[in-house]
């Protein structure tokens, strides 16, 4: 689609140039008309091919991929009802993020080269993001990673590094830095007497990077705390009993974990059965959806991070009507409260929409993906959770919300204790542009 447009523009330009040359001799009126014709662009009548990729099967589907996909569908319906994006309706197709990294590379290639989609909003697994985002520039397709968190996605090898790393690739959310730095700040504030920490994280980019940032921040903020062990079960492990026992044997006060999806649910259930929570406390860097998944039995006093400020009860509905709408509409359609993948879906969808609209206004028609990318940088949008800004490194930045789980009679699952909820502002938990997160943490003066 975009190539055809460029072809036409080229053609017009060359004939225009020839015309100008000829007309230069004969006078100006032709020149003005040719130039005006080159500016005007139509908006295509056919719908926008929007592909979403997320886990539709497997353990990550129910707590993650399916809520995200539900949110995409809900939002696409709303946007279409309001007239579409710049008058074009959205045609949403959902794809499964299953099959591993290699299958996702091939799927992305098929979507961009074969199906020629307008944009891909997707990717939950950090491993998939790392592999797929380079394809955005390689293949010439717009990709907005909506849920993955690894901080190395956009960072260079040394500080300072050049931004942006990709022209057509974005991550419409903050990376795992905010979760793990937030956890460290939270522990320092509320649990200053702890002596030993441990980690159990999935053995891939997401888990390794989460632990790295957490450990770095803890070493800076609470240097006297010791790490008594780290465990690395592969992603989608189903039997954590050996790990749980090993953790209990190491006797940490707090256990950091970036386990997510089915892993988090299975781990929590198995740990409950083995008496883990009588001895230690978990600090889940992505814990927000799981009290709802596990239900009333979910243990209290667990430190939970919301991957941003995404929580169905925050910001409070009376103060932030967009959250009120989002939560109520989602609950009406799907019978559950939206969790952070849903909020991330909103961010991706609306970043795309706003960037297209902004670029479209500038070029007077439907923008190319390069123009959309340029327009997306610096975009600041309102979301049901607050605000999202996309910086020049193509990463989003957000505030982060953390809390402790607590059972209340109003809900059938524990919520975040309102008396001990903390929001850390974006500039405190996001590294500045061009500086690696690890280097930034190490440069803090505490």
């Amino acid at each position, binding site marked *: 689609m975009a190539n055809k447009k460029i072809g036409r523009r080229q053609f017009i330009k060359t004939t225009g140039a020839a015309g100008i040359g000829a007309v230069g001799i004969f006078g100006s009126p032709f020149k003005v008309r040719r130039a005006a014709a080159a500016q005007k662009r139509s908006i295509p009548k056919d719908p926008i091919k929007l592909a979403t990729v997320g886990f539709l099967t497997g353990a990550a589907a129910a707590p993650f991929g399916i809520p995200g996909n539900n949110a995409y569908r809900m939002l696409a319906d709303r946007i279409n009802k309001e007239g579409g994006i710049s008058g074009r309706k959205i045609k949403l197709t959902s794809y499964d993020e299953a099959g*591993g990294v290699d299958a996702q590379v091939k799927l992305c290639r098929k979507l961009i080269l074969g199906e020629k989609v307008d944009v891909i909003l997707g990717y939950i697994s950090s491993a998939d993001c790392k592999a797929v985002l380079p394809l955005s520039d390689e293949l010439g397709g717009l990709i907005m990673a909506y849920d993955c968190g690894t901080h190395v996605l956009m960072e260079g090898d040394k500080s300072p590094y050049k931004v942006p790393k990709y022209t057509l690739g974005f991550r419409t959310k903050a990376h795992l830095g905010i979760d793990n730095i937030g956890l460290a700040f939270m522990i320092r504030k509320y649990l200053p007497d702890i002596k030993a920490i441990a980690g159990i994280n999935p053995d891939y980019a997401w888990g390794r990077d989460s632990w790295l940032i957490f450990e770095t921040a803890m070493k800076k903020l609470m240097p006297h705390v010791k790490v008594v062990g780290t465990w690395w079960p592969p992603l989608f492990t189903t039997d954590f009993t050996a790990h749980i026992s090993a953790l209990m044997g190491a006797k940490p006060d707090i256990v950091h974990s970036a386990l997510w999806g089915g892993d988090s649910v299975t781990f929590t259930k198995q740990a409950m059965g083995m008496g883990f929570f009588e001895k230690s406390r978990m600090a889940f860097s992505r814990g927000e959806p799981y009290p709802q998944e596990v239900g009333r039995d979910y243990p209290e006093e667990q430190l939970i991070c919301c991957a941003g400020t995404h929580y169905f009860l925050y910001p409070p509905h009376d103060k932030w009507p967009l959250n009120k709408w989002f939560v109520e509409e989602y609950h009406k359609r799907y019978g559950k409260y939206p969790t952070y993948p849903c909020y991330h879906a909103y961010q991706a969808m609306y970043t795309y929409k706003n960037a297209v609209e902004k670029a479209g206004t500038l070029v007077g028609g439907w923008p190319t993906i390069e123009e959309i990318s340029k327009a997306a940088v610096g975009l600041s949008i309102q979301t049901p959770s607050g605000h999202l800004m996309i910086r020049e490194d193509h990463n989003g930045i957000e505030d982060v919300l953390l809390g402790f789980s607590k059972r209340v009679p109003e809900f059938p699952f524990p919520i975040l204790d309102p008396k001990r909820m903390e929001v850390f502002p974006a500039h405190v938990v996001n590294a500045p542009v061009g500086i690696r997160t690890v280097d930034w943490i190490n440069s803090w003066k505490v």
Partner: protein
Amino acid sequence: MGLKNVITRPKFIIYSLLILALLFLPRILSTFNLILFEYGLTFAIAVLGFNLLLGYTGLLSFGHGAFFAAGAYGVAMIAKYFPGLYAMEILIPGALLLSLIVSAIFGFLCVRHTKIFFAILALALSMLVYALVFKFYHITGGSDGLYVKVPHMFGMTFEGTRRPQFLSGIYYYFLLGVFVGSFIIMKGIVSSPFGKALQAIRDNELRAELIGIRVRRYRLYAFIISGMFTGLGGALWSFINGHVTPDVSHWVFSGEIVYMTLLGGFAILEGPIIGAMIFTFLKLYAMGSTEYWMFIIGLTLIILVLLLPTGIAGGFKKLADRITG
């Protein structure tokens, strides 16, 4: 066999025409389909090597993915640790060397056994490679895998060229050349006395031993050559895929290599090539049409084994024989 004899044979003429036609393929196929064709070519090289072991020596290995991985990770490691050496002239020999080492080790352990022990041992060793690559996250990238960027080739750099352009341009001709070269070399191997000896071992191990063929040693040589071809396929594949993950060392991937060979037919030299090309497109077609593509692939395999054990090439040959009487 004199050169004149070879050139005037009908097969040679047909193949030459075919290759000539293939030179024009980039103009006919879309970029997407051309990339698929290139995948098929790399698998063709890989299974050509595999079939030396299966079709000609009679050994079924369910662990050839490990050599494919050796080739692919060889490239990726050089990209990661020796970026200054990241040129095709170094990458291909490097990948071949790594596959040589891995297949020599595997071969030494495996060729003492036959039949089911051989198959299981090859499987277990390839899974060991898989597990090691998986766990040594800081070196190999673990399950995230490693990125493989477009390499320098014979002095040319491709900064600013997008990979699809690279793949539909010079890389296609390079790959085609390597493929033709591999085919000629493999043909030479199987027609040579060494190749004949392998077939003798396949047909009757005891008799081969009795007439003086050193069975175990020849099996080892076949294993190593086979592994190197597969590793070459893996290296060439890595540039097309742009990304290597431990999955290529998993036994299921090795199973696909066996599948491709059987699909095409392992009794003929060209068989596996046909199988590799058909499988590549079949898998993609199945994945594109339905979410139950594994069902289709599995069913096709079962039908193949039950009804067409000599594979598609074998089936054609039977047909051709019947027609010509």
